[in-house]
């Protein structure tokens, strides 16, 4: 049994880490190895950490409104380093209107307030399994 490795990161100048921690704990309780990098990470730092840690998937949390600029930079950074197989998803207070743009930029799923933890856990598991097939 190979545990799924997840990086949970908070890009940008946003100190609200409650959501990131709750999601991290739920993923851990589902048997995953969660690398939590803490606050105020630049997209470059997140990309490097994801590669060094050989994670399957990166979850980005942003509650400051800067998601449109920060999330796509992580996807671009991974692609530039030949790590496009690492899946990126996001969450936070993100207006519905922004979601299609984020999806188009390569953030494969966006979870907004009210999403159940089960939904996030099961999406992550299925998405990573699909990558391993």
């Amino acid at each position, binding site marked *: 049994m190979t*545990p799924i490795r997840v990086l949970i990161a908070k890009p940008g100048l946003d100190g609200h880490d409650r959501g990131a921690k709750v999601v991290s704990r739920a993923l851990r309780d589902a048997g995953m190895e969660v*690398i939590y990098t*803490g606050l105020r990470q630049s997209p470059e730092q997140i990309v490097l950490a994801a590669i060094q840690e050989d994670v399957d998937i990166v979850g980005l949390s942003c509650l400051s409104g800067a998601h449109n600029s920060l999330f796509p930079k992580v996807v671009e950074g991974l692609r530039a380093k030949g790590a496009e197989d690492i899946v990126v998803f996001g969450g936070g207070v993100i207006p519905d209107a922004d979601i299609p743009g984020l999806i188009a930029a390569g953030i494969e799923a966006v979870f907004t307030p009210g999403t159940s933890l089960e939904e996030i856990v099961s999406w992550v598991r299925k998405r990573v399994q699909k990558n391993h097939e």
Partner: protein
Amino acid sequence: MSDELRQLAKAISKVENLDFQALADAATLPLDSAAVHVIGVTGPPGGGKSTLCNQLIKELAVHHRVAALLVDPSSPFSGGAILGDRIRMQALVSNPNVYIRSLSNRGNVGGVASSLVSILRLLMHNGFRYIVIETIGAGQSEVKIASIADTTLVVSVPNLGDDIQAFKSGILEIADILIINKADLPGADSLYSALRESAQNPRLGWTPPLCQTIATEGTGISALLEEIHNHGHWLRQEGRLLEKRKRAAKFEFLELSRMLLQKHLDAVPAEVLARNLNRKGINLLQKLNKVYDELLNTFSEV
């Protein structure tokens, strides 16, 4: 460069997942490089190990390539883990001389991950000059790090108990260097007197020095580095380092075989195992013993 790093990271995952091909490949890589210094850091949870490692790595990485292996515990219930030691090392992430990897102990008791020595082989092969291993928060008996690292640092902090704690067997005995971190806190002086006794006991010809640090401020780090280098020089005399690495290789085999047994046992439902242990338990153990015997005989034939 980034490609190489990606390959290394993936190779480490395979070894961690006990992929036999990856383990066999790793086993061909030498463990005896005298140019490499493996530094283990252990001590209680919240004692400042990550912050201390951050300071050490920052200094070492000025001139050398440094790898850090940060071990955190897995959940006994889900098998998952929160690996959070990187948080104290954010400034090192973009340093091109530094590679940081978080590892779950994956249920392995003793403070480390069972695949750690095989991972060391990969890192040595990739040209890292220093390898810093941070154990999970350790209590009194998590002493496996001493079988892996060349130099073991035991971090202590004030106010964890009275002087009897410093008197007990276990983790304090494995220290090549003793550290009092958070040395600005009240109680540091009495800890110093209590530890001085342990520190002045020579073990196999080495007397562990006692260092005081305030890791958050970087205080005492250069003195600590000097002691680390001193120990490194001492190890390189009279074949001591080679002896250590041979023991690490033996430990690697022991840990991996233990892990393999556990993996197989985990696949058997407890009820089935319990029933069969009652019926043919002795047989099972005898068989196991015979397998070990045969295996070790093939060793001595070579």
